[in-house]
């Protein structure tokens, strides 16, 4: 269904600079979240996304395709949207010099049609207004319920063609909400929309983790009045207990190939790391310390993992091979460093560091040099998780006394705040490209 698009190299080489960075605030009201964006990148690429033919009546309750694409591109902080009030179809031959004169470096247009079997056929095309070139397009035939997904995939394609990086607009996030004594494990599109509940419980739920194929979530539920690790198929709701050993079972982390999970178990006394197959079975003990070892996170090559241990006194991040052996300490600044997350390219480590005044703040370490940078100026940061393209980190924090979810770029410049409408939100985890 997908026609090949031209190479993005030419796009990347061009100078997209739009002058000094200005502050930008975008407010959007949605069913689950209000999204506030602050900061912009050094450059913003001006693009126009015209209304698609026949998109208005396609699935009004789910939104409008071109509006979803525009919101995605704008929220990324990488693009500046140029006004495009009139419909441009993918079959059109737009006057590109005219679009260039309006300030657009690129133009997208398309159409939405209902197929005989009830599906939607969403088509689009992208044009380079600077080089006066057709950059190709796509036709996506999807069930009605996946209309937003089709729009996010179009935004991903535009993002990739123009920046050279894969987009994450079509990915999902999982997170936990608490309203009174009701806990819910939720799944939403990366823009916070389309939220659905995977698990409702009167007892706490923590530490959700996506399987690499995007189909399952491992999580810790206290529904049996102790911490037990479950794995749940997101689409069907079928679930299984992965670890329900004596004591606490927690901190699930999937190996990159999805075959194995690292867990923290206390069945032999102290909280230690174990490996267990995705279907369960006998766990293999990985760490042998008399201290707390927890919060494992696999390196992308699956050969080593990062984890938190207080073997040296306070909690610090360590690294060890998945085959066992000695652990090397990774964090040295400060007395309390927890919740490691490894970037998809394995080059960066995000973690939470406690500062002198008791603030818990998101930090990023360049693993090659060991250089550590604070990415926020907030005080209650928790649970960092990388977007699968490695360009953003989602984390939990507080704002004006409320729990919120935040995303930040790796340089800390562009932040988006996802404010939930009713419940407190925590424990965000970004899903893989697959779904």
């Amino acid at each position, binding site marked *: 269904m997908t026609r090949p698009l031209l190479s993005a190299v030419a796009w990347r080489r061009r100078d997209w600079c739009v002058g000094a960075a200005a502050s930008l605030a975008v407010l959007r009201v949605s069913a689950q979240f209000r999204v506030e964006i602050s900061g912009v990148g050094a450059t913003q690429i001006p693009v126009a996304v015209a209304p698609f033919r026949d998109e208005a009546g396609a699935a009004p309750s789910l939104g409008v395709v071109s509006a979803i694409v525009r919101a995605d591109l704008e929220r990324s902080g990488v693009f500046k949207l140029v006004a495009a009030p009139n419909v441009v179809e993918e079959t059109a031959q737009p006057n590109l010099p005219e679009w260039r004169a309006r300030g657009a470096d690129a133009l997208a247009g398309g159409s939405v049609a209902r197929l005989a*079997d009830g599906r939607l056929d969403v088509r689009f095309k992208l044009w380079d207004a600077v080089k006066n070139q057709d950059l190709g397009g796509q036709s996506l035939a999807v069930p009605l319920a996946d209309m937003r997904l089709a729009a996010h995939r179009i935004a991903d394609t535009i993002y990739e063609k123009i920046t050279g990086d894969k987009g994450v607009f079509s990915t999902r996030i999982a997170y936990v909400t608490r*309203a009174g004594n009701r806990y819910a494990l939720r799944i939403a599109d990366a823009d916070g929309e389309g939220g659905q509940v*995977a698990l409702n419980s009167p007892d706490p739920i923590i530490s959700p983790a996506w399987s690499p194929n995007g189909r399952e979530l491992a999580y810790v539920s206290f529904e049996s009045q102790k911490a037990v690790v479950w794995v749940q198929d997101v689409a069907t709701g079928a679930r299984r207990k992965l670890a329900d050993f004596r004591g606490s079972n927690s901190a699930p982390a999937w190996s990159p190939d999805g075959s194995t999970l690292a867990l923290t178990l206390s069945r032999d006394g102290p909280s230690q790391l174990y490996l267990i197959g995705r279907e369960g079975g006998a766990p293999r003990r990985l760490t042998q310390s008399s201290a707390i070892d927890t919060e494992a996170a696999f390196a992308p090559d699956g050969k080593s993992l990062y984890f938190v241990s207080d073997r040296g006194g306070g909690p610090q991040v360590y690294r060890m091979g998945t085959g066992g052996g000695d652990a090397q300490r990774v964090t040295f600044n400060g007395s309390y460093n927890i919740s490691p997350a490894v970037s998809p390219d394995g080059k960066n480590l995000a973690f939470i560091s406690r500062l002198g005044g008791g603030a818990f703040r998101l930090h990023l370490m360049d693993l090659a040099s060991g250089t550590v940078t604070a990415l926020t100026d907030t005080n209650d940061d928790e649970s960092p998780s990388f977007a699968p393209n490695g360009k953003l980190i989602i984390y939990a924090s507080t704002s004006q006394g409320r729990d919120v979810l935040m995303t930040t770029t790796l340089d800390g410049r562009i932040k988006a705040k996802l404010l939930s409408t009713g419940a407190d939100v925590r424990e965000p985890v970004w899903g893989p490209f697959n779904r």
Partner: protein
Amino acid sequence: MKHNTKTLALILTAAALAAGCASKVPLEEKKDVPVETRSGTGAGAAGGAGSGAPASQVTTVNTGASQATSAPRIVYFDFDSFTIRDEYRGLIESSARALAGSRNRKVVVEGHTDERGGREYNLALGQKRAETVARAMTLLGVNGDQVEAVSFGKERPAAQGSDEAAWAKNRRAEIKDK
């Protein structure tokens, strides 16, 4: 922090409406999950025959109601400490005596922490508190299989608030009959 269950209900309703389907399907009962229901909220009326399940489909699982428990005996801890204060030795000894005299009885020791710090690390810290109390009881003659140490970390505070008064009430181990 305020909790607005009405808004949550609206959100859930909206999500269900958006998906076009919210029928509840009771499933099999499980031993420690008294009631579990699932409701499809992603498939909706989308597409026709042969269109396949939407990639956006999520099915909701509802766990059963939280189980009520008897009033616990509580051991409080100092900040960053896992040491049982002298004032609680009597409580632990009497609990241990009762168990040693009745080998069929079982208890669970739940460790808890205050709200500061990460959820998983606090879970491990709470576990360490619970293990300390459980070990003290086994040293007093209780069989290992009569007492299980578990942790709620910072997930189930006894007192709300972000001051030392609340934190002191939350750094605790609760001994509960099983």
